[in-house]
């Protein structure tokens, strides 16, 4: 019984942390783009809409995946992709921006295309985590609304922390590249956490309540 509670706690922790990392990467994204595309309203508009696009696609795809049945092993795989992609940013983002800058797409299309290329893919995976977590946690159909509500609230609280923490402190303490690496590392820790949950759940056997 107690271990089931532990699994529930892990689900919330993953929702919270993943929510924080999404917004941290969005804030850091503005620092990545600025040397090439400035930090105008066009850059911010591009960044925000691309993150929304990634999340929207992720919510949909995560729902489709969840319908086939959710497991902690699947969750670990879902987290692994953005963990790798975000960890690679310090090495991939600047050369990609350089290349896109040379294409000279204009003051609006330039930052929009750069945001699309850089940030869509990991954000899709992070968006997919939300419905997947709902499926994983809510076993009682009658309580699905309550469970989803709790998860969204926790994940969005994480996003607040990610936004404020990054803009108020992280950029001062670590700079852009090290902060991105840290975000990749945190997602990596979530992969391990999901893996541990998988083993714990396997040991528990089928749910009896």
């Amino acid at each position, binding site marked *: 019984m107690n271990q089931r509670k532990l699994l529930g706690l892990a689900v919330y922790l993953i929702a919270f942390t993943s929510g924080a990392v999404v917004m941290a990467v969005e804030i850091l994204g503005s*620092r990545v783009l*600025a*040397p*090439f*595309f*400035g*930090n*105008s*309203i066009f850059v911010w508009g591009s960044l925000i809409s691309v993150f929304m696009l990634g999340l929207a696609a992720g919510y949909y795809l995560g729902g489709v995946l969840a319908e086939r049945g959710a497991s902690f092993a699947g969750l670990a795989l879902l987290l692994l992709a953005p963990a790798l992609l975000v960890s690679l940013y310090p090495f991939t983002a600047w050369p990609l921006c350089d290349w896109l*800058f040379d294409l*000279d797409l204009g*003051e609006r299309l330039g930052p929009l295309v750069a945001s699309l290329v850089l940030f869509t893919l990991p954000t899709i995976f992070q968006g997919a985590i939300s419905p997947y977590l709902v499926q994983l946690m809510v076993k009682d159909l009658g309580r699905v609304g309550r469970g989803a509500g709790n998860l969204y609230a926790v994940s969005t609280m994480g996003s607040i922390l990610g936004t404020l923490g990054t803009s*108020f402190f992280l*950029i*001062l303490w670590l*700079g*852009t*590249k*090290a902060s991105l690496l840290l975000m990749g590392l945190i997602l990596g820790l979530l992969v391990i956490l999901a893996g541990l949950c998988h083993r714990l759940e396997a040991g528990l056997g089928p749910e009896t309540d």
Partner: protein
Amino acid sequence: MRQPWATAKLLGGLLLILGLGLLLDLAWPTGGQALQLRPIYEADSLYHHVMVMEDPEGLRYLSFNRAMGHQSVVKPGHPELLTFAYTKSGFAALAFLDRPPASVLFVGLGGGSMPMYLRLVEPQASIDIAEIDPEVARVAEKYLGFRPDPAMRVVTQDGRIFLKRNPQRYDVIFLDAYNDQAVPFHLTTREFLELVKSRLKPGGVVASNIWSADLNRFFTSQIKTYQAVFPQLYLLQAGRTRNYIFLALAEPGRVEAGAAVARARALTRDRPWSFDLAELVEAEYDDYSQHQVEAPVLSDDYAPVNLMRHQKEKSPQP
């Protein structure tokens, strides 16, 4: 029975708050009222809240934000009037150049007072201006007496992007894209200054307007960053204000105070200069090339400019 009394208390309280608010609003010293400024134009642009106001003497004030100071003060039709101390000190850059300025770039237009003054005293100079906000360029022309000509063009583009896209080199590059509230971090970094340096002709000078209300970490970091990129750095404190002009040269060496003063004299002779540049250079010259400061160099990876502005320096360095 208690309800009417509670309602009355509530209404009374609200009225009191309203009255206090009104009183405060009337009594609050706003810059506009103190200086008797009459608003002429006000609009939101992509980047700012642009306001133009006029005082009884016909001076026009450009501002970007109610809470901020004025960006520019001009009298349309009178480019010889330079109101802000830093605009005068900025022209000290010309005294560090070993020839008349043939090509000049301004990053940041504002009210256009500096380009217009340069046009007045150096009619042959070719002048480029990179201004990010198309509304500012429009307002400068319509309300502030800014007059572009075939050899003085405004490109509406972010300064860094403009420099990156244009391989053209300049005798003098003026950086005036900062203000007291918002500093675009990508125009402060070592990578940006390397780009600026690569757009200088041999012997060319960078003049940067840097504002610092107090001695904060950001200010010392800027000194350190300029020193990291430019072998020569001179700091001019503009007329005892908190506006500093950083003058930076790409080649090693030294421009002695006497040489700069002599150069200023030669340059201003027989030209319609409205102030004594030689006297200004003599008063404000300060060689910072070797001045030791302890601060991180700003880079594209690490430039927490807005956060550093709130970190006070323990010991005053400059």
